[in-house]
């Protein structure tokens, strides 16, 4: 039957082609319309947030339009000052004090462990790998209370250690898994050549594996950055002094701090709080789509 259809198509190419072309064009238009409409609906709240950050308190609750009637930066200035004794300069600085060390220890520990899992053969590897996959599905919520008790026992409460230390031991297993999968897809030719040249395993890791893993490592950095910036319950449980609060916690207390909430300021700071994540996301766009092959050849 398909042979007949083929023959028919060959017999009358122009008519079929023109019909197909028109259908395809219509199809494309429908798809674009759908995508643009959906995109607008989805992103509108974010646009509204930006517009609202310039509005007065009264206008915020009555005006759904994007454009504010004025371009007033007072909400930003007021919000940045906060009603606490610290400004958001401090809170942003604190956020980076958590994020940057955490990213560094995550990348180092996860790359090492992924290297071991993807390339080496050792005792207990299969069991350890199964444990790793299982912990990806283990709800963090079950571990939270005992971890809290442990950190209290070691006198580490109200510091950044509980937020950073576990990541130094490759406990963010999602990243290990991602790196292992990525590494398994890379042929070992280059490593074999390097070994013949007398590379030891650490040199191999640094000169061959890490450059090959670059796109995956960038994904780890981006995700860890955004997840740590967004993390709320961690700082909420472990930090008690206001001077150590990261942005997420400071934003939360900016709502509860005074009787009359300055919504304009809260919105303005919300916009600023989202900026680092947006910036990192768009900066890494190119690398997200970068394939294995290109980096492998370049490296």
């Amino acid at each position, binding site marked *: 039957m398909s042979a007949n259809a083929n023959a028919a198509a060959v017999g009358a190419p122009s008519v079929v082609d023109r019909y197909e072309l028109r259908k395809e064009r219509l199809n494309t238009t429908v798809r674009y319309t759908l995508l643009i409409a959906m995109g607008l609906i989805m992103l509108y709240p974010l646009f509204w947030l930006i517009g609202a950050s310039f509005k007065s308190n009264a206008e915020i609750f009555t005006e759904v339009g994007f454009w504010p009637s004025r371009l007033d930066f007072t909400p930003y200035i007021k919000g940045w000052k906060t009603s606490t004794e610290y400004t958001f300069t401090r809170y942003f600085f604190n956020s980076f004090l958590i994020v940057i060390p955490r990213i560094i220890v995550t990348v180092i520990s996860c790359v090492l462990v992924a290297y*071991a899992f993807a390339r080496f053969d050792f005792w207990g590897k299969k069991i350890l790998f199964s444990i790793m996959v299982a912990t990806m599905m283990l709800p963090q919520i079950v571990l939270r209370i005992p971890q809290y008790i*442990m950190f209290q026992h070691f006198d580490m409460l109200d510091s950044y250690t509980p937020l950073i230390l576990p990541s130094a031991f490759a406990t963010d297993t999602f990243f290990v898994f991602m790196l292992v999968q990525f590494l398994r897809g890379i042929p070992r030719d280059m490593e074999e050549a390097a070994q013949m040249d007398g590379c030891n395993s650490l040199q191999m890791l640094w000169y061959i594996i890490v450059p090959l893993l670059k796109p995956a490592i960038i994904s780890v950095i981006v995700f860890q950055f955004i997840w740590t910036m967004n993390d709320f319950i961690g700082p909420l449980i472990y930090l008690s002094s206001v001077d150590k609060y990261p942005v997420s916690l400071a934003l939360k207390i900016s709502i509860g701090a005074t009787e009359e909430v300055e919504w304009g300021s809260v919105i303005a700071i919300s916009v600023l709080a989202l900026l680092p994540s947006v910036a990192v996301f768009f900066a890494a766009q190119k690398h997200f789509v970068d394939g294995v092959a290109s980096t492998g050849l370049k490296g």
Partner: protein
Amino acid sequence: MYENKRLGLLYCLPFVIGVALFKLFPFAMSFALSFTQFDLIEPPKYIGLDNYREMMTTDQLFPKSLGVTLMFVALTVPLRLAAALMVAQVLNFKLKGINFFRSAFYLPSILGGSIAVSILWRFVFAKNGLVNQAMIAVGFEPIMWLGDESYSMWTIVTLNVWQFGSSMVIFLAALQNVPTSLYEAAAMDGAGKTTVFFRITVPLITPVIFFNLIMQTVHAFQEFNGPYMVTEGGPLHSTYLLSLYIYDQSFKLFNLGYGTALSWVLFALVATLSAVAFYSSKYWVYYAGEKERS
């Protein structure tokens, strides 16, 4: 070199220590603590099954919170996966600017977990908020989303469904791997679009649906920021998810024994559902190359 077993174990050592210290030990400890009464000051006191008994009998909040959690998961996960698959299907086409759309739909997944977006959501669903204004514009009565216990659930469900982008990207990658020859063959046989979607596309990407289903379910059971910030668990505990209840019991009332028992109920739920999914997967998940063997 790669045969050097000591070297491999050495590189794996951070994980061995980390998983023992920060995963397995706390896991065992929380199980043990769930049979105790513990307030961080006095040493834990063994009380047998009393915590679990209390949940089943005197605790009025537990059944409420459990019901709310199940409702939340049952609404969020299917809606989110359906949205992700539908948009991925529309995107899976030789479109110019596909990367632009992919990023645009991905953005909410990046930002959605933040406190800032939770604050934004309070405005989206406020009395004069974006949703109500849109509803008035098309002729509906506005709804007190945040104040009415029969609607409040939707505010946190939409916040999570809005973040479908992360699942969408995974679906899109899977859709792009479906061989075009299958679509051509189906078109030759005169199959309609719906038939092709449900008979060819969906069966071929079941492994990815399975993966997304498990990960999203585990994730949804732990949702915290949305209900904590948007609805504060209310009104009348209508959005009081178990994660909130565990937090309040453990870190506000310092009933850590009861808190761990609650978290074990949550864990048991997640584990049971995952086990069901894994067990049933052989009936509905298709793995390429398996058909030839049977």
